[in-house]
């Protein structure tokens, strides 16, 4: 894909780099942190990275629908984070912890 890209389409490379870095930071946070709330922040970072890509590709490839999808993702992410925080509160009330490695009650 990268090979076939024309020179005037390469403008977005820095943005792609930023977006990729953001995504990897998000993954690292989600995998390594011991706080479920911080894990949620990592998920938000990944979503933001994806949004950045949608906006970055908008002029060349996607047209107006790139921004539309980004808006869509924003709304869904807001709803998702509200639900996730509620679930975490519930988990905290029953288990007295927010460490994901201690949420292993399903394990025999």
């Amino acid at each position, binding site marked *: *894909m990268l*090979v076939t890209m024309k020179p005037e389409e390469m403008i977005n490379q820095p943005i792609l780099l930023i977006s990729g870095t953001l995504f990897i930071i998000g993954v690292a946070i989600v995998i*390594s942190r011991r706080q479920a709330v911080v*894990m949620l922040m990592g998920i938000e970072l990944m979503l933001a990275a994806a949004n950045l890509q949608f906006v970055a590709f908008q002029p060349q490839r996607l047209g107006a629908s790139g921004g539309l999808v980004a808006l869509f993702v924003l709304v869904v992410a807001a709803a998702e984070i509200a639900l996730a925080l509620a679930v975490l509160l519930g988990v905290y009330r029953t288990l007295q912890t927010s460490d994901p*490695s201690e*949420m*292993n009650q399903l*394990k025999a």
Partner: protein
Amino acid sequence: MSISGMGLEAWSALLSLLLPFLAAVFCIFMRPGGRVAFSLYFLWLGGGCVAAWIYFLCAPLTDQVYIRLSWLQMPGVHLHLGLAHTAATACLVAIVSSIGLVTAFYSVGYLYQTGHATHRARYFGHVALFLFGMQVLLLAPSLFQFFLGWEIMGLCSYLLIGFSRESQDGPPAASKAFMYNRVGDASFVGGICIVVAIAGTTDFQALQTLHQEQALPTFWLSVAGFCWVVASAAKSAQFPLHGWLPDAMAGPTPVSALIHAATMVVAGVLLLHRMLPFMDMEHVQWIGGMAAATALLGAVQALQAAKLKQVLAWSTVSQLGWMLLILSMGGVEGSLSHLYAHAFFKAGLFLVAGLILSAAGQLVAPKDAPYIHWMRGIGGTSSSVLWLGVVFLLSLSGAPLSAAFLSKELSLHQMMLWWQTHQTQMTWFTTTLLTVALLTPMLTAWYSMRLFVLVFNPYSSRLFSGKPAFSRSMRIIPFVLVPGCTFLLLSWNPLAYQDSRGPVWAQSDPEAALFLLSIGLVGVGWLAGYFTTTVQLSTSDDTQESDFIRSLRLSLLSKLLRVLNSAADVFRPFQAERLTMKLAHLISGIQYFETHIVDRFVLLLAQAKVIVAQVAQWLDTFVADGLLKLIANVVYQVGPNTAEVQSGKLQGYLLRVVAVLMLGFATLALILLK
């Protein structure tokens, strides 16, 4: 948004859709003791029912779209919501809202009797939402809205089956129903994605136009067809995914009436009916295989189920299988009319079952008696319950003058047409389908009769004591459903589906034979049911009788022995000496034979056996045991190592997911760069 030709029927269709929703909203304001919101609830629900009937009576004979709203518009994707009239299923709108209203009225008494009256706001809200979901589905102009209604019903069935949170079976059954339906829903979403990808729209009319222009690729249509089949198998409880429906009877009985009759399971049949034009007739045959398996399985389970509601639940499974079987043979009208008939008598049977079970709850059960046996004859103690049971069971077994009789005639007629076109290329598969299509009505009559003998027979000897008390108000309500069980539901003529055509069975000779055959099958089923159940009853609980028979047999045997002894005494004194000489010769001959031939043979046999045993022992220790030990050792070695993979730690799993995804993307990038 376009509103075109909003006549009376369009407005009443809109009302029949919105009023149940309004009723559901009003349940937020319903207090345990309050009356205003409760009365308003029934006002809205009743209004919705009246509107549905007006819509049905004024509805035109062609399909129309009244309202079309654009819900999502993106390049290549256009999803619609709205209000559409489908001529073939318009009467279901009226049937659903009527049965919904009847069950809601019945539930008032039911909740009061079972002590759940404090939660009635939650209950009635979910019931109204359930009906709303079904109307959304029935009046859908697009596959997308069909799916919305489908999902609303899935959610409401979960909430209602698990309504009683204290009961032991309710919540697990609710989860089970939800899980099974998820399988179907995932498949439905997959089908919608395929349709959007190949057509860009989910509008039924637009899809039909595209299909007629042959603009849709056939391969992807078959894949989508498979998705529809899986989806409807989960919703309509077909063979591999049927497990949730018999368990769902753990919910309140009126809810079972709703799920089995008016809403929920109907949706699967409707989906296949809507999507049948897009499917290849070669593939549709395989639906028939699934449906035939379901029909047989359900009927056999209904024959031996131990609980009243279980019999009814398995009977629904079987009937749905039969409908889909007929549908797969191209019998669209037959299966739909059977769907309507089934809605009425199954709702009625469940309401009667609720009456009986709540009356049986007040009786004391004798010990060691199977569930359905100790309360036998309970339905016969009250004449109104008896009559209700008889009418609904007659309709279930498809007796003449009932609605199911007409729908069965039509279905068998269409089965016959299918047979005539396939006559030249019959295989064992199509033969099996035909056999099952004929066998299921007989089995239905069989378990109907079993149910009658066990539960409703007024002359059976009772095991319980006391007179069960049936609630008077709840006893009256199921009578409303009785007209729907008679032939009036489908036609004015008791012997033909439509007056204009004349009796279906009089058109040609084989059809007259089929007509007689179907009546005969019902008769055979009834006889078989009556005799097997009475025999089963007489052997299961009368231990005194079998003791009596045993003593009788013993005394006869001893008499016979005494007679033989006295006969031997008469012959003893004659020619004793010669007889002993001859006997001595004979005995020495026998002795020779024994020692020289029989004993040697036995010895040889024993030696051979020892050799074989030794070989077998060697095989056992080294081959069979060795294999097992090998497997055990391998498992013993592998087990602890693999157990570490399932650490139960969330982030460990996430890491693995990320690793696999990165590997996948790397491979993809390599392939694309080449």
